[in-house]
């Protein structure tokens, strides 16, 4: 037996293969590393590593005045950054006891629901791409472009939007913005028609159903224990939605339902997101109608009358004394900040996005913590993919809507 070539210790006995999926694997759509123990193609064990793009936002926020923190929130969930921006403004407004006019609330709802749609359409079409159907992704992409054009009309930028101010918006919506919104909402040629086509491609597609039904399921109890929120939780059958539970920005004025699934698998998550897009479209229609009801001087209201906190328009800064003073005070962080701690949350596109802000009365927050939904539910991923196939792990990851920027803060 001595002429046998001896393999290194453990190489025969070890029945499983170790595979390093990520951190820069194209199938992970972001910087995620998972070390998988594979038995054939079946996953026995997974270990997740996160933090590859950590940028210390919470620390940076501790030396920035409130309005300078808005661009940091963009970079959390960059697929729906307006929701993060609005969530941050709402948190500041709660701290500063600022109430916004109805028109501002409705305009914010329009922006937030557009952001929700743009986030969900990316997530759902990427699930399609990962299961081998590329065309759906290309179909919906032109409408994300249209949504980005609307952002551009309102705030000037597309991806990291820095949209809005404490108290409202930086400028009123232009007619072009509303025209583009109308184009987006058009039943025949707009997004509803496209979404219907997208659903025709996937919802009852035999191949897609076979790939996603029963893939990465989670029960409602486990999902709650793991801190799931948003569409992933609702797919497991729990109808928790921040928009309904603690309405912000006048969501109580809108009529919409909260779609829920039953099994919490990839297919249910897909269906819940599609249904939410229909609900968002309905909210958008209602909000647009409400906005159109404001006539005359009311139609020019785009921010609350809080000069101490609302960054004034540049042309006023150059021509009006008060605006110049307030501009200086806000930019230099000299505004009066109340002492207190506030937790405020909004329904982000992938779950409850919370802001915990402690103010000691100084010019910057004493402590700011972001409750980032996908950071919390990502810990369930090893359990979701255990005993499944490697290719199912890829679909499960994309259907959880994990955004590396938000996960790593």
């Amino acid at each position, binding site marked *: 037996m001595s002429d046998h070539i001896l393999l290194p210790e453990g190489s025969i006995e070890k029945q499983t293969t170790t595979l390093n999926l990520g951190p820069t694997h194209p199938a992970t759509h972001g910087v995620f590393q998972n070390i998988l123990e594979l038995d054939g193609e079946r996953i026995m064990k997974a270990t997740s590593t996160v933090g590859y793009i950590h940028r210390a936002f919470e620390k940076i926020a501790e030396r920035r005045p409130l309005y300078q923190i808005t661009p940091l929130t963009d970079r959390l969930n960059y697929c729906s950054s307006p929701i993060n921006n609005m969530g941050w403004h709402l948190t500041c407004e709660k701290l500063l006891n600022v109430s916004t006019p109805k028109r501002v609330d409705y305009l914010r709802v329009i922006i937030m629901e557009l952001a929700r749609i743009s986030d969900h359409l990316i997530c759902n079409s990427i699930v399609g791409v990962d299961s081998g159907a590329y065309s759906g992704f290309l179909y919906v992409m032109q409408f994300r472009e249209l949504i980005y054009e609307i952002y551009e009309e309102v705030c000037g930028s597309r991806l990291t939007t820095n949209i809005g101010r404490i108290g409202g918006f930086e400028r009123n919506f232009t007619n072009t913005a509303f025209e583009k919104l109308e184009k987006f909402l058009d039943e025949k040629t707009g997004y509803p028609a496209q979404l219907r086509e997208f659903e025709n491609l996937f919802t009852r597609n035999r191949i897609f159903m076979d790939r996603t039904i029963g893939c990465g399921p989670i029960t409602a109890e486990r999902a709650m224990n793991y801190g799931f929120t948003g569409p992933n939780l609702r797919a497991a059958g729990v109808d928790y939605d921040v928009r309904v539970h603690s309405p912000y920005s006048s969501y109580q004025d809108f009529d919409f339902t909260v779609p829920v699934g039953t099994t919490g698998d990839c297919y249910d998550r897909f269906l819940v997101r599609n249904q939410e897009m229909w609900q968002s479209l309905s909210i958008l229609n209602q909000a647009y109608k409400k906005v159109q009801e404001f006539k005359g001087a009311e139609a020019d209201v785009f921010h609350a009358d809080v000069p101490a906190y609302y960054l004034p328009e540049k042309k006023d800064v150059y021509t009006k004394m008060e605006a110049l003073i307030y501009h200086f005070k806000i930019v230099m962080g000299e505004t009066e900040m109340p002492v207190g701690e506030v*937790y405020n949350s909004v329904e982000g596109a992938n779950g409850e996005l*919370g802001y915990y802000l402690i103010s000691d009365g100084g010019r910057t927050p004493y402590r700011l913590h972001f409750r980032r939904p996908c950071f919390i539910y990502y810990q369930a991923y090893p359990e979701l993919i255990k005993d499944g196939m490697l290719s199912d792990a890829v679909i499960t990851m994309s259907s959880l809507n994990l955004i590396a920027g938000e996960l790593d803060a």
Partner: protein
Amino acid sequence: MLTNEIIQQKLTEKFGDVLTDWQEPYGMLTFTAPNELNLKVLQFLFDDADLKFNFLTDLQAVHYPDNKGAELAVVYHLHNWVDNIRIRFKVFADINQPDVFSATALYQSANFMERETYDFFGVNFVGHPNLIRILNVDEMDYFPMRKEFPLEDQTRIDKDDEMFGRG
């Protein structure tokens, strides 16, 4: 209908005077619990038939360097989805021995959140299955969110940072 008063009353009945510093900033009931009681409070809030605080929304720490002997506060945000009410409670720990019991046995979601808190503040969660750094590099030997690490003064001129385009 569950209100802040009822919650406070039930907790005081159960734990007596050890829960202190009752406040309601912006409508959210806030109190401080003794360090060693954090799990008992969480479990009571979870199990009680009326309170039903079944969801751990958030867990993080705050550093108060002037609060000698209790520099680190660990803050729990809990949410009752049935009555839709939130509460917040804090436990304080000495920075020289920041031991706090881990909530991972009750909430799986506490796993990453406690790792993050350990990573940035150095709170030692006793009973955590895998208390290692999560967002920072493993080799880091300090806890960056503590207040003794201020961010660099942006106006400093003694540093040659041509490399960063600021020289």
